């Protein structure tokens, strides 16, 4: 039986399903969905920060801005992620 990325659902010849292989595919699909989400939001934010009045093409400064914006967006993502994780741990410690 073929899965979403042309892969097997972890079934062996006996027809038994392997949780390990199923989970591998679940994780891949989650990662792909997350990457899509990230790109969509990053594009939105960087378009707003970098493109003023839309011209006939993206000029050099706009392209540079986009590249920096992407890097900063991912830096910010990591900062926020760490802050959230810390807060969750603090709240759990107080429970």
């Amino acid at each position, binding site marked *: 039986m073929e899965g979403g990325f042309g892969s097997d659902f972890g079934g062996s010849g006996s027809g*038994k*399903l392997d*949780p390990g292989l199923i989970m591998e595919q679940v994780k891949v699909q989650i990662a792909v969905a997350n990457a899509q989400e990230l790109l969509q939001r990053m594009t939105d934010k960087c378009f707003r920060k970098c493109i003023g009045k839309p011209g006939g093409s993206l000029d050099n400064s706009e392209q540079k801005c986009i590249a*920096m914006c992407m890097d900063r967006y991912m830096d910010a993502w990591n900062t*926020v992620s760490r802050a*959230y994780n810390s807060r969750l741990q603090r709240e759990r410690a107080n429970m």
Partner: protein
Amino acid sequence: MADLAEADEADLQRLVAAEQQKAQFTAQVHHFMELCWDKCVEKPGNRLDSRTENCLSSCVDRFIDTTFAITSRFAQIVQKGGQ
């Protein structure tokens, strides 16, 4: 899932629940980014300076504090309103 042994099915449920929790965390981070990027980042530079980093961290904490504040005050309002 007739093809899974009972132990395997329990395993799978546990693993899926763990992934769901991770996914919830990630979704929440995306949400924070929606709000906090606009509040904290001006023009993207070569790196995030410490003022921006502090702003982003504070933003997360203040949003969570706001959530608590709203939840508790709303509970009070509802309690007073429901005679």
